Protein backbone atom coordinates (compact mmCIF):
# COMPACT_ATOMS: atom_id res chain seq x y z
CA UNK A 1 0.00 0.00 0.00
CA UNK A 2 1.81 3.09 -1.19
CA UNK A 3 0.65 6.52 -0.16
CA UNK A 4 1.63 9.82 -1.62
CA UNK A 5 3.69 10.53 1.49
CA UNK A 6 5.78 7.40 1.13
CA UNK A 7 6.34 8.08 -2.54
CA UNK A 8 7.40 11.64 -1.75
CA UNK A 9 9.78 10.47 0.93
CA UNK A 10 11.21 7.85 -1.37
CA UNK A 11 11.83 10.30 -4.16
CA UNK A 12 13.07 13.04 -1.87
CA UNK A 13 15.64 10.71 -0.37
CA UNK A 14 16.59 9.42 -3.76
CA UNK A 15 17.06 12.97 -4.95
CA UNK A 16 19.83 13.35 -2.40
CA UNK A 17 21.79 10.47 -3.82
CA UNK A 18 20.79 9.97 -7.39
CA UNK A 19 20.35 12.27 -10.32
CA UNK A 20 17.88 10.00 -12.07
CA UNK A 21 15.69 8.73 -9.19
CA UNK A 22 15.98 4.98 -9.58
CA UNK A 23 15.26 2.23 -7.12
CA UNK A 24 17.92 -0.46 -7.43
CA UNK A 25 15.99 -2.95 -5.30
CA UNK A 26 12.51 -3.31 -4.01
CA UNK A 27 10.49 -5.85 -2.10
CA UNK A 28 6.84 -6.68 -2.51
CA UNK A 29 4.34 -8.97 -0.80
CA UNK A 30 3.07 -10.08 -4.20
CA UNK A 31 5.01 -12.88 -5.84
CA UNK A 32 3.69 -11.75 -9.24
CA UNK A 33 5.85 -8.62 -8.88
CA UNK A 34 8.90 -10.80 -9.51
CA UNK A 35 8.37 -10.20 -13.20
CA UNK A 36 9.39 -6.60 -12.57
CA UNK A 37 12.42 -7.59 -10.53
CA UNK A 38 10.85 -7.47 -7.06
CA UNK A 39 12.28 -9.39 -4.15
CA UNK A 40 9.61 -11.06 -2.07
CA UNK A 41 11.25 -12.19 1.11
CA UNK A 42 12.22 -9.03 2.96
CA UNK A 43 12.96 -10.70 6.28
CA UNK A 44 15.32 -13.32 4.91
CA UNK A 45 18.15 -10.82 4.80
CA UNK A 46 19.40 -7.91 6.83
CA UNK A 47 18.30 -4.45 5.78
CA UNK A 48 21.36 -2.52 4.72
CA UNK A 49 22.02 0.81 3.12
CA UNK A 50 19.20 3.33 2.88
CA UNK A 51 15.66 2.05 2.64
CA UNK A 52 12.05 3.00 2.99
CA UNK A 53 9.74 0.47 4.59
CA UNK A 54 5.98 0.81 4.45
CA UNK A 55 4.73 -2.56 5.67
CA UNK A 56 1.19 -3.82 5.39
CA UNK A 57 -0.99 -2.73 8.26
CA UNK A 58 -0.92 -5.96 10.18
CA UNK A 59 0.27 -5.53 13.76
CA UNK A 60 2.64 -8.50 13.83
CA UNK A 61 4.12 -7.68 10.45
CA UNK A 62 4.72 -4.06 11.40
CA UNK A 63 6.32 -5.12 14.66
CA UNK A 64 8.47 -7.68 12.85
CA UNK A 65 9.57 -5.08 10.30
CA UNK A 66 10.44 -2.59 13.03
CA UNK A 67 12.45 -5.16 14.96
CA UNK A 68 14.16 -6.31 11.80
CA UNK A 69 15.17 -2.73 10.99
CA UNK A 70 16.56 -2.22 14.51
CA UNK A 71 18.53 -5.45 14.42
CA UNK A 72 19.80 -4.68 10.94
CA UNK A 73 21.06 -1.26 11.98
CA UNK A 74 22.63 -2.74 15.10
CA UNK A 75 24.64 -5.44 13.38
CA UNK A 76 25.44 -3.75 10.10
CA UNK A 77 29.00 -2.67 9.56
CA UNK A 78 27.97 -0.30 6.80
CA UNK A 79 25.83 2.80 6.87
CA UNK A 80 22.23 1.74 7.38
CA UNK A 81 19.05 3.75 7.77
CA UNK A 82 15.50 2.51 7.32
CA UNK A 83 12.72 5.06 7.14
CA UNK A 84 9.63 3.40 8.53
CA UNK A 85 6.13 4.59 7.69
CA UNK A 86 3.74 3.28 10.30
CA UNK A 87 0.12 4.03 11.08
CA UNK A 88 -0.66 5.23 14.54
Amino acid at each position, binding site marked *: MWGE*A*SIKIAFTLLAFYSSDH*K*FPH*YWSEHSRDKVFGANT*SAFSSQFS*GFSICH*PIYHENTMLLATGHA*IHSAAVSTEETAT*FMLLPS
Partner: protein
Amino acid sequence: MTTNPCASLCRKYPHMCKFLGTIPSDQFQYAKVPFWNNIQIPVSKHSWKLQIIAIWNTKGRVCLNAHNKDWLKELAKEIPEAKWELQNIHNHPYQTALGSVQHSGLNKFNKLPNDHPQASEGPDKTSALISTDQLLKCNIDEAPQNSSSQNLTRKVKDWRD
Protein backbone atom coordinates in the same frame (compact mmCIF):
# COMPACT_ATOMS: atom_id res chain seq x y z
CA MET B 1 2.37 9.97 23.12
CA THR B 2 1.67 7.01 20.86
CA THR B 3 1.52 3.66 22.61
CA ASN B 4 1.33 1.17 19.76
CA PRO B 5 3.75 -1.80 19.90
CA CYS B 6 6.04 -0.48 17.16
CA ALA B 7 6.39 2.91 18.84
CA SER B 8 7.04 1.18 22.15
CA LEU B 9 9.75 -0.95 20.56
CA CYS B 10 11.37 2.12 19.03
CA ARG B 11 11.38 3.88 22.39
CA LYS B 12 13.39 1.02 23.83
CA TYR B 13 16.18 1.92 21.42
CA PRO B 14 16.20 5.73 21.36
CA HIS B 15 19.81 5.71 20.22
CA MET B 16 18.77 4.01 16.97
CA CYS B 17 15.19 5.17 16.45
CA LYS B 18 14.30 8.76 15.72
CA PHE B 19 10.70 9.94 15.37
CA LEU B 20 10.98 12.36 12.51
CA GLY B 21 7.41 13.41 12.10
CA THR B 22 3.75 12.58 11.78
CA ILE B 23 1.29 13.11 9.00
CA PRO B 24 -2.19 13.75 10.41
CA SER B 25 -4.95 11.51 9.13
CA ASP B 26 -6.66 14.35 7.30
CA GLN B 27 -3.45 15.39 5.56
CA PHE B 28 -2.55 12.31 3.59
CA GLN B 29 -4.25 10.05 1.13
CA TYR B 30 -3.39 6.77 -0.46
CA ALA B 31 -2.64 6.50 -4.12
CA LYS B 32 -5.56 5.30 -6.21
CA VAL B 33 -4.61 2.09 -7.91
CA PRO B 34 -5.73 2.00 -11.54
CA PHE B 35 -7.57 -1.23 -12.36
CA TRP B 36 -7.55 -2.74 -15.79
CA ASN B 37 -11.31 -2.37 -16.12
CA ASN B 38 -11.38 1.19 -14.68
CA ILE B 39 -13.46 0.04 -11.74
CA GLN B 40 -12.27 1.57 -8.49
CA ILE B 41 -12.85 -0.41 -5.33
CA PRO B 42 -13.85 2.11 -2.67
CA VAL B 43 -11.61 2.06 0.39
CA SER B 44 -12.99 3.13 3.72
CA LYS B 45 -11.72 6.46 4.99
CA HIS B 46 -8.68 5.98 7.17
CA SER B 47 -8.70 7.24 10.72
CA TRP B 48 -5.02 6.82 11.53
CA LYS B 49 -2.11 9.15 11.24
CA LEU B 50 1.18 8.11 9.69
CA GLN B 51 4.41 8.20 11.64
CA ILE B 52 7.80 8.62 9.99
CA ILE B 53 10.52 6.94 12.00
CA ALA B 54 14.18 6.64 11.08
CA ILE B 55 15.96 3.52 12.31
CA TRP B 56 19.67 3.88 11.76
CA ASN B 57 23.14 3.21 12.97
CA THR B 58 25.81 5.80 13.60
CA LYS B 59 27.32 5.35 10.15
CA GLY B 60 23.92 5.94 8.56
CA ARG B 61 23.36 9.15 10.50
CA VAL B 62 26.85 10.39 9.77
CA CYS B 63 26.48 9.62 6.10
CA LEU B 64 23.21 11.53 5.81
CA ASN B 65 24.61 14.53 7.68
CA ALA B 66 27.82 14.43 5.68
CA HIS B 67 25.89 14.64 2.47
CA ASN B 68 23.60 17.43 3.62
CA LYS B 69 23.38 18.70 7.18
CA ASP B 70 19.94 20.16 6.38
CA TRP B 71 18.55 16.98 4.88
CA LEU B 72 15.71 16.78 7.39
CA LYS B 73 14.69 20.40 6.85
CA GLU B 74 14.66 19.81 3.13
CA LEU B 75 12.59 16.68 3.56
CA ALA B 76 10.18 18.72 5.68
CA LYS B 77 9.88 21.28 2.91
CA GLU B 78 9.02 18.54 0.44
CA ILE B 79 6.31 17.14 2.71
CA PRO B 80 4.70 20.17 4.34
CA GLU B 81 1.62 18.21 5.33
CA ALA B 82 3.63 16.42 8.04
CA LYS B 83 4.37 17.77 11.47
CA TRP B 84 8.13 17.41 11.73
CA GLU B 85 10.38 17.21 14.74
CA LEU B 86 13.23 19.28 13.42
CA GLN B 87 15.97 18.87 15.96
CA ASN B 88 19.52 18.50 14.79
CA ILE B 89 20.62 14.97 14.11
CA HIS B 90 23.91 14.46 15.89
CA ASN B 91 26.77 12.42 14.57
CA HIS B 92 28.14 11.11 17.83
CA PRO B 93 28.12 7.36 18.32
CA TYR B 94 26.07 5.55 20.94
CA GLN B 95 28.42 2.82 21.99
CA THR B 96 26.89 2.11 25.39
CA ALA B 97 23.33 2.00 24.21
CA LEU B 98 24.22 -0.16 21.23
CA GLY B 99 25.44 -2.78 23.65
CA SER B 100 21.93 -3.28 24.96
CA VAL B 101 20.77 -4.45 21.55
CA GLN B 102 23.50 -7.05 21.46
CA HIS B 103 21.76 -8.97 24.23
CA SER B 104 18.49 -9.39 22.40
CA GLY B 105 19.21 -12.58 20.48
CA LEU B 106 21.23 -11.35 17.56
CA ASN B 107 23.20 -14.52 16.99
CA LYS B 108 20.67 -15.95 14.56
CA PHE B 109 20.15 -12.57 13.01
CA ASN B 110 23.84 -12.21 12.30
CA LYS B 111 23.65 -15.24 10.04
CA LEU B 112 21.19 -13.57 7.69
CA PRO B 113 22.73 -12.43 4.43
CA ASN B 114 22.97 -8.82 3.44
CA ASP B 115 19.95 -7.74 1.43
CA HIS B 116 21.43 -6.29 -1.72
CA PRO B 117 22.66 -9.39 -3.56
CA GLN B 118 19.41 -11.19 -2.85
CA ALA B 119 17.39 -12.92 -5.54
CA SER B 120 13.63 -13.19 -5.59
CA GLU B 121 12.23 -16.11 -3.73
CA GLY B 122 9.29 -17.00 -1.52
CA PRO B 123 6.31 -14.85 -0.51
CA ASP B 124 6.44 -12.41 2.33
CA LYS B 125 4.03 -10.09 4.08
CA THR B 126 6.06 -6.95 3.76
CA SER B 127 4.32 -4.67 1.38
CA ALA B 128 7.09 -2.40 0.25
CA LEU B 129 10.69 -1.85 1.06
CA ILE B 130 12.75 0.14 -1.34
CA SER B 131 16.48 0.26 -0.92
CA THR B 132 18.70 3.00 -2.21
CA ASP B 133 21.82 1.39 -0.83
CA GLN B 134 23.48 0.85 -4.19
CA LEU B 135 23.10 4.52 -4.93
CA LEU B 136 24.74 5.72 -1.80
CA LYS B 137 27.66 4.00 -0.08
CA CYS B 138 28.69 7.56 0.70
CA ASN B 139 29.89 7.87 -2.89
CA ILE B 140 27.24 10.45 -3.28
CA ASP B 141 28.45 12.03 -6.45
CA GLU B 142 28.70 8.73 -8.24
CA ALA B 143 25.90 8.03 -10.69
CA PRO B 144 24.15 4.64 -10.39
CA GLN B 145 25.06 1.94 -12.84
CA ASN B 146 21.59 0.72 -13.75
CA SER B 147 19.64 2.29 -16.52
CA SER B 148 15.94 2.97 -16.35
CA SER B 149 15.17 0.47 -19.08
CA GLN B 150 16.90 -2.28 -17.11
CA ASN B 151 14.74 -1.56 -14.10
CA LEU B 152 11.59 -1.91 -16.11
CA THR B 153 12.38 -5.04 -18.05
CA ARG B 154 11.23 -8.48 -16.96
CA LYS B 155 13.75 -10.37 -14.84
CA VAL B 156 12.18 -13.79 -15.49
CA LYS B 157 11.01 -15.48 -18.62
CA ASP B 158 7.48 -14.69 -19.75
CA TRP B 159 5.24 -17.69 -18.97
CA ARG B 160 3.65 -17.42 -22.42
CA ASP B 161 6.94 -17.96 -24.24
